[in-house]
């Protein structure tokens, strides 16, 4: 098995999850707040786009945008000293965009389920919106935060199309586990492919168990708290 690819995949998944959690929390709260009208609808559509777009399409556009063919690409090259495409940082950007819906949508669902009466109660005690979000909304939606993190992580681990388009297949730099599996099969090395596939299945099963095995995470959810009362 390609341990270099495993290590790279883990770094990519952890990095993507960390970036997306920070970015998705405020974004999801804004979407769940119901303000913004048409702008909100547009943002929701853009966030959901990677769900329906072929990954190769996203990968293609990112490749162009990050390469020397476009002005933004040339600017990025000047800032980083090398093209973002075919590099780990480029892969990270691609993964963040590709996994965006998996991070945002569970959070939107979780935040929407928090009874607005709690937000009102906190505001009626003089709490600023940021305090209300951090001390009231977030703890009540923490099951959704876990779901969001796990889905983002596993989705990034399983990524193929974007990574191949954007990263090429450079060992140690952009070759992830799923691409390594593809290579192994192409080479007819089925024994190694089997082991690699098993690792990927392991990731998925453990992640899903983490979501379903923690009922305590669900109990403190806003909806449940209401039912308990």
């Amino acid at each position, binding site marked *: 098995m390609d341990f270099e690819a495993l290590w790279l995949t883990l770094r990519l998944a952890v990095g993507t999850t960390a970036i997306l959690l920070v970015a998705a929390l405020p974004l999801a709260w804004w979407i769940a707040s119901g303000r913004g009208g048409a702008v909100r609808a547009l943002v929701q559509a853009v966030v959901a786009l990677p769900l329906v777009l072929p990954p190769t399409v996203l990968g293609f556009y990112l490749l162009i945008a990050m390469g020397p063919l476009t002005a933004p690409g040339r600017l990025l090259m000047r800032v980083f000293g090398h093209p973002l495409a075919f590099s780990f940082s480029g892969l990270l950007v691609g993964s963040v965009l590709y996994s965006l819906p998996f991070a945002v949508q569970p959070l939107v669902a979780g935040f929407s389920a928090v009874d607005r*009466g709690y937000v009102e109660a906190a505001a009626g*005690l*003089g709490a*600023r919106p940021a305090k209300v979000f951090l001390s009231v909304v977030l703890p009540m939606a923490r099951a959704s935060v876990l779901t969001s993190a796990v889905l983002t992580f596993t989705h990034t681990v399983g990524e193929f199309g974007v990574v191949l388009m954007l990263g090429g297949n450079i060992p140690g730099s952009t070759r992830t586990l799923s691409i390594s599996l593809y290579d192994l099969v192409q080479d007819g090395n089925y024994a190694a492919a089997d082991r690699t596939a098993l690792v990927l299945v392991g990731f998925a099963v453990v992640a899903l168990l983490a979501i379903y095995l923690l009922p305590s995470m669900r109990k403190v959810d806003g909806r449940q708290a209401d039912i308990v009362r």
Partner: protein
Amino acid sequence: MEGRRTLSDKLPAKLLTVRMKHRVGTVSLDVEFALTKPWTVLFGPSGSGKTTVLRTIAGFVRPEEAVIMRGAEVLVDSKARISLPAYTRPVRSAGQTARLFPQMTVRENVAYGVGWDSKSEAARGLVDEVLKLFRLGVTTESLPRDLSGGEQQKVSVARAVASAVTTGGSDGALLLLDEPFAGLDMRVRDELAVELKEWLGERKTPVLSVTHDVSEAFLLGAEVIKLRDGRVVQQGPVGEALREERHRLIEHLGVVDQLPG
């Protein structure tokens, strides 16, 4: 020690002035009143618009047309397109349903809106005092889901009280309580209402509460604003404003007394 001054000695002439028009459901609200007493009760039958008035003052309802002032500070002026966000208003509120934060203990809930440095000795002392006032001493470390409905209601009001008396600013905060004693048994309510009124009076924190309970209004000896079908029909001391209701209540009790049994 200096003799205790009552709240009205120190209060500005008008604690709060409200003029608002708003349609909600089948009720078309059109009210105008001013608060001048330490404790004022908005009295009226269900569906008369009491809660909407309270929620508008708190900043949770955006009225169609309104001017609401706390002393000289404008909270809402619909013509000038002014509407302060709820959390910046010199007002603290406890809604009809106790929305206790489920992951916090009773003590943490009560301390949530305290305006002083929450780790300070003074803040802790105050929270203790409020817990004691509301007879929540034995439940301080419990989570809301382990409380009875009445206890939850007390924590909800205690939380708003602790926040209101620690709010800074020129006039401090006005406390808005929607059915604060609902769900409490009569004996507890009677004691608590009287003690709370005195305690808040000492701290110069004025109250506007909502009720449809005649005896509660008399118990508080409050100024009463009577609401019916979205209009203010009377404002004055409880003995005057609710004379009719009191007679009716006594009549009912009299009938009960004469029942064979």
